[in-house]
């Protein structure tokens, strides 16, 4: 099969699985998950074949796999859609295929396949457990299977379709289609347990917040199309002429060039999708969804798609970029990215819910990538995108495994505690060894543990870029964020796995099934090894022993291959210090937290801690600034004031005046004149109707004769009129 054809087919299996599960197999749980996982496996296989063929291709950046077909005609030309796998999308395809497959497999275990049906489980609520009675008459509670098992697999199938579509697309329009499909699936999956009010609120929040960004993005796409007449990546981003024209055309707004304007509009789409400040509020709430969903949508795929889009649009964002002089969109990105990275890292320090910590950490790491792109680190951003997808998916799945183990303990002991609160855990190291070791690897990769983990290499490259290009402020902010990252990661690991169990449930936690641990192990392998492909050449001791393949390969996506920054010891030492220092601090502070104790940081930090714990009151702020005013506007202002007072008042007045006029008119004009003529018209119509009734015979042929005769008569009339007027 030709590679291009194969690429066309990649998104198909998950879509078919979606339709089959929804339409035919939704009664059978085993069949449904077999279909979904099988589809993910097929797509994975295809992706790997494409990826291998891609890396074997010499000069792949100049000769990517591309094919397009005309979709719909637009005047003289036709709008082309098609597929494109260039170095950037090849590596994206690689991580998407792996993480999606792992998450599909993990979902089988996570949704308790093979467990009995719950005692009181209802669709729309998480499973509550089932009571089993063994032969000795002892009854005990065990986890029960998800009531809407098939539905879950259908939704994630559709989601995978959206993601694959986005990655293989060669133009912004089909990218946007995939983007929106994922937005829909995100909505459906966050609200998967729709009977929980919090899940419903979270799904709406996520949908509306991302929609804000999407509208701007769509405007950006439309603007780009109106300027260039195409949306194909290669024709815009790989075309010096087009980029130059866009960079020199003025948009007529704020003194921005067209390229800058489009870039900023597209970037706002990313702010929504990748949960950057100030549209970050939806992502932590999205943790209401099942954990595989959090891992897939909110770590590996959807939020990465936002970053992928801006990396893709980098040539446009940086059009007119000269060394040391950032373009406006790049400045905006550098600011928002760096700010978000630090800002959400501080919030993550004070969260107790194991998944929320990861959610804020995700926002922070995405900010890293945006900042890297903002300072011109194209390859570094792409590199961190990939390593992050692996280790963050690993961490999310690991946290799901922890929660599962805890739920098992909760069911066993019957305690009423929150299985997601890290202060209820502790000492899970011995109970859940596989989860512990893989989570540790993921955590170390996230904090950038030197040399062995992937996170170190990608983060180091971002810091090196910031230093090398002379953006000291960005460098300092990112270094601080890295310190905090290492700190909260170690806090999480220490609170969850180290020390002694703080509750009965934690004592009875149990390792999860192989369907959940196998993906953890595989992702852990990538969390370590994905970094080795991008070791800088001049790195001391080991640099150059493995070629910096990633830089050469992904750099080929751009017209001008970006140069690697010259090596410097300062960023390297900084990243060593912040990673190890943060880890050490986290361990020291949290190693002795006993049952029922408060957070050790609460006393020294005081009100700052409360501020962090409440996420800088952003939710409250948005509630006050956007939600409440909207209510107020519609209730008090629009309804009571405008509607009742002004409009109704005017109406009443109008009614009063018109009733006076009306009485007058009725007596002197209506009755004698209008009624008389009205009756005449009525009678006349009746008579005419009686006369014309024969025309409506119900006979089709007669109708057609009448139609054709009239058509002929009108044609003659028009011809006559046209030929007489000059």
């Amino acid at each position, binding site marked *: 099969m030709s590679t291009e054809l194969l690429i066309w087919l990649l998104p198909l299996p998950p879509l078919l699985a979606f339709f089959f599960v929804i339409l035919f197999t939704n009664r059978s749980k085993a069949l449904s998950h077999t279909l979904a996982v099988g589809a993910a496996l097929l797509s994975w296989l295809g992706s790997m074949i494409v990826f291998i063929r891609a890396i074997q291709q010499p000069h792949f950046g100049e000769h990517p796999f591309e094919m397009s*077909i*005309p979709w719909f005609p637009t005047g003289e030309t036709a709008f082309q859609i098609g597929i494109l796998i260039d170095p950037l999308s090849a590596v994206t395809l690689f991580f998407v295929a792996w993480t999606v497959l792992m998450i599909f497999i993990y979902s089988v275990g996570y949704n308790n396949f093979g467990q009995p049906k719950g005692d009181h489980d209802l669709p729309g609520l998480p499973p509550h457990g089932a009571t089993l009675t063994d032969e000795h008459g002892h009854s005990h509670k065990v986890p029960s299977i998800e009531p809407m098992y098939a539905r879950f697999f259908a939704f994630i199938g559709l989601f995978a379709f959206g993601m694959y579509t986005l990655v293989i697309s060669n133009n912004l329009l089909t990218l946007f289609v995939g983007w929106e499909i994922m937005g829909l699936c995100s909505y459906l999956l966050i609200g998967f347990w729709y009977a929980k009010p919090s899940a419903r609120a979270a799904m709406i929040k996520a949908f509306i917040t991302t929609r804000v960004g999407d509208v701007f993005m769509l405007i950006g796409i439309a603007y780009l199309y109106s300027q260039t007449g195409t949306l194909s990546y290669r024709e815009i981003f790989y075309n010096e002429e087009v980029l130059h024209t866009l960079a020199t055309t003025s948009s007529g707004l704020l003194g921005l060039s067209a390229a800058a304007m489009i870039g900023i509009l597209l970037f706002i789409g990313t702010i929504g999708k990748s949960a950057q400040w100030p549209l970050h509020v939806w992502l932590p709430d999205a943790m209401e969804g099942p954990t595989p969903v959090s891992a897939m949508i909110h770590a590996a795929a959807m939020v990465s798609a936002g970053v992928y889009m801006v990396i893709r649009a980098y040539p446009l964002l940086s059009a007119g970029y000269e060394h040391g002089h950032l373009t406006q969109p790049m400045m905006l990105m550098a600011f928002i990215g760096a700010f978000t990275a630090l800002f959400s890292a501080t919030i993550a320090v004070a969260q107790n819910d194991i998944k929320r910590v990861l959610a804020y950490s995700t926002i922070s790491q995405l900010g890293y990538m945006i900042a890297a792109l903002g300072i011109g680190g194209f390859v570094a951003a792409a590199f961190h995108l990939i390593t992050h997808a692996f280790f963050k998916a690993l961490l999310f799945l690991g946290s799901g495994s922890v929660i599962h183990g805890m739920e098992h303990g909760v069911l066993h002991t019957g305690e009423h505690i929150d299985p997601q609160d890290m202060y209820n855990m502790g000492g899970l190291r011995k109970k859940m060894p596989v989860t512990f070791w893989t989570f540790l690897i993921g955590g170390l990769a996230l904090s950038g543990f030197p040399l062995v983990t992937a996170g170190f290499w990608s983060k180091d490259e971002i810091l090196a870029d910031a230093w090398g290009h002379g953006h000291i402020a960005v460098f300092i902010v990112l270094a601080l964020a890295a310190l905090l990252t290492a700190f909260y990661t170690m806090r999480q690991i220490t609170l969850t796995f180290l020390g002694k169990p703080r509750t009965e449930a934690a004592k009875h936690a149990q390792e999860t099934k192989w369907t959940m641990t196998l993906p953890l192990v595989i992702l852990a392998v990538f969390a370590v090894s994905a970094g080795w492909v991008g070791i800088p050449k001049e790195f001391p001791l080991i640099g150059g022993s493995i070629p910096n393949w990633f830089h050469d390969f992904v750099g080929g996506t751009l017209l001008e291959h970006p140069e690697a920054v010259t090596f410097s010891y300062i960023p390297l030492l900084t990243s060593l210090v912040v990673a190890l220092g943060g880890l050490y601090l986290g361990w020291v502070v949290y190693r002795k937290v006993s049952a029922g104790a408060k957070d050790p940081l609460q006393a020294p930090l005081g009100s700052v801690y409360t501020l962090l714990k409440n996420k800088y009151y952003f939710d409250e702020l948005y509630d006050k600034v956007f939600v409440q005013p909207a209510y107020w506007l519609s209730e008090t202002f629009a309804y009571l004031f405008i509607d009742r007072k002004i409009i109704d008042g005017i109406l009443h007045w109008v009614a009063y005046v018109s009733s006076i006029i009306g009485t007058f008119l009725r007596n002197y004009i209506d009755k004698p004149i209008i009624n008389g003529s009205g009756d005449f018209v009525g009678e006349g119509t009746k008579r005419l109707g009686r006369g014309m009734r024969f025309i409506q015979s119900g006979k089709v*042929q*007669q109708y057609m*004769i009448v139609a*054709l*005769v009239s058509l*002929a008569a009108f*044609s003659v009339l028009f011809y006559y009129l046209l030929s007489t007027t000059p």
Partner: protein
Amino acid sequence: MSGLQIIFILVAALTLGAGLLAVTVRNLVHAALWLILALFGVAIFFVLLNAGFLAVAQVVVYIGAIAILMIFAIMLTQQVASYKGTQLNANWIWSAFIAVVVFAGLAWILSSWSGFSTLPPEMSARADPLRQLGSALVSPTAYVIPFEVASVLLLAALIGAIIIAWDRK
């Protein structure tokens, strides 16, 4: 006048005559038979136009299937078909008038077009319309989607015809 032109005139006269009889004769079975002759004439035109495949398809699809289907329908509605009175309705004069107007109008519009009396360009010896047609119908850059839609349409028509004609008693 070349031989080709003579053939054309003969076949055209045959086809038009058969068509005219098909829409006027009283006996419906005869009308269907005249229709077959007219369709056959059209097939000959396809041959004259170097569209051999379409000529074969015309014979197989129209004469082999559609016309036979017509005859079946006539036989199934036998009571009506054996009606011996006139087969034209009261408006036939109007219909004839419209038919003449449409013909005159079409002929007049066409004759004012500059390419009206174009002569056929030479077909190059290497051209293979049949192969071209075959690959165009299954090529994603040409007509595969209309082709597939047509197949779905046929399926829908098949099922629809069965459902509609189903004798529920």
